[in-house]
């Protein structure tokens, strides 16, 4: 057992619901992606790793230590939760500073490091606005800033790209890559395989609380390419955007499920994500957020688990 994270037959129940089911995996150095549909057990695993849940069975270690109620270990990790926030009246700067002060960072250093971390995630211009006014993508970046501002050894990121706009995604993925290049370890979850692919080849697939596949992303990719990948785009002009995207040969369908939303299905998600920023930039259309429903991934999981 010498991985950054070691999980051996870890199970966690919520009453009669099984959150993790004899989950066994070893996550090495660098960036590891934890990929699985919503409800697969990703957040449960992360809560176990940051010591906020206690496993009912099995053993889990982070950086070689048992994380449950392990206060010193918390200095070594940075956690970016999927949905929570501190208080909406705090500005981005205050939000990060407050959490740095909880680490024991002196006020002056907390101010400096918060400013630097917000700059890294591209939030300098909004640093002095209350976080309650932030878009979902901006909140994700603020949470990422607080996770890395105290210079942890490992980042645990729960769906860090969820709801982020294209520019925000670039910032977030670039920040994660830089952190890993600098020697840090990253464990990030997503229900969209293609998001992980940009920063790492190492993935663990999780489904119904079990690790069903681990290793190189390309082997999994071959399976997924047989299923069209769905991308939901928030925009004020969905029809104009659909018109612009129609020139992509790999796009197979468009839907307009609700107002200001465009649902695109593509057979080449990597090419789609690569070309989208340029098209948005050329057409000057307003894209507020990107999200991928996990139905395409679900199909792969159904295939993998028989």
């Amino acid at each position, binding site marked *: 057992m010498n991985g950054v994270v070691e999980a051996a037959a870890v199970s966690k129940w919520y009453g009669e619901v099984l959150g993790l089911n004899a989950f066994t995996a070893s996550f090495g150095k660098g960036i590891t992606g934890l990929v699985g549909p919503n409800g697969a057990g990703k957040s449960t695993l992360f809560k176990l790793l940051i010591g*906020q849940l206690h496993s009912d069975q099995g053993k889990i270690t982070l950086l070689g230590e048992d994380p449950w109620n392990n206060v010193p270990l918390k200095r070594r990790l940075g956690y970016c939760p999927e949905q929570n926030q501190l208080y909406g009246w705090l500005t981005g700067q205050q939000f990060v500073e407050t959490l740095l002060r909880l680490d024991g960072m002196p006020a002056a250093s907390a101010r400096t490091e918060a400013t630097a971390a917000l700059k890294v995630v591209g939030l300098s211009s909004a640093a002095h606005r209350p976080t309650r006014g932030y878009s979902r993508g901006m909140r994700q970046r603020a949470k990422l800033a607080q996770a890395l501002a105290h210079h942890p050894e490992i980042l645990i990121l729960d769906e860090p790209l969820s709801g982020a706009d*294209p520019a925000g995604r670039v910032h977030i993925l670039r920040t994660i890559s830089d952190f890993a290049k600098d020697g840090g370890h990253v464990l990030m979850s997503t229900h969209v395989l293609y998001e992980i692919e940009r920063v790492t080849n190492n993935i663990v697939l999780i489904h119904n609380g079990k690790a069903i596949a681990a290793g190189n992303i390309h082997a999994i990719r071959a399976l997924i390419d047989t299923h069209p990948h769905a991308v939901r785009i928030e925009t004020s002009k969905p029809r104009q955007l659909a018109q612009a995207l129609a020139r992509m040969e790999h796009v197979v369908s468009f839907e307009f499920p609700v107002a200001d939303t465009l649902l695109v299905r593509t057979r080449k998600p990597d090419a789609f994500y690569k070309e989208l920023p340029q098209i948005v930039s050329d057409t000057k259309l307003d894209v507020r957020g990107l999200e991928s429903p996990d139905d395409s991934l679900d199909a792969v999981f159904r295939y993998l688990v028989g």
Partner: protein
Amino acid sequence: MSISLPTYSRLEIPLLGRRERVWAIIATGLRREFRRPAAIVVIAIGVAFTTITSIVLVLFASFLLPGQPLNLSFFALPASNGFVLFFVSLMAAIIGSGLIADDLHSMAFTLYLSRPITHLDYLLAKAVILAPLVSMITVLPLVITALVAAFLFPLVFSWGVALQAIGLSVAVGLLLALFNTSVALFLSSLTRRKGLAAAGMFGGNFGLFIPASILASAIGNPNLLYLSPWNDYLAVASAAFGAPGIGIDWPGALAILLGVTVLAALVTYLRMKSVEVITG
């Protein structure tokens, strides 16, 4: 699209100790409370009402309370002022009920505990936020009253008596403040809905005081008064100031107040220590 980004680099920063980390929680909590109009209003009105009514008692003691001896025992009256019960309950309900419940509801608790903060640190900080605010109702008006009495009527209330009254006011006021702080945090830790905790606070203070008083007098059994924390407090305060009691022994009443305070704090700690943060 072209985006240029600064690069991230790691560095080591010497970190401060536990006291500073706890203070960071306190500072954030106090900033939050003093941004809430409801909290500011209840503090301002509570302090004003309890102080003014207590001072009125001093100014018009001989008219309002003929036969009341004007010595140390007089100060049991402001200490048993009904406004204290009302505003302490209101403050514990409005401020205390949300201190933990709101953090559980908003998931801020997850972020707090992702930092090197122990459950004890967290609870201590929450208690330090609430206790001084509650003390502004339970202690401050009594101290001001004693000072006003000594300034205005030095021949009736000597400085010696006033200082004794101040010391006793601090002691009994802190007892009541700690009791309400501990119970409010306990109730707040039980739920993510602060309204329930607030209702519990009022229920605990008024819901026990009124029925216990009515039943005790109806069936002639004063022991029922022990059930009400406010009656327990009155018994202790009366004994402290040397005033006539309310029919129950102060040692028993004191033991109940201290026991409940310690028990509520202990149970809250154990509950928070075992709480698992589930976000669905």
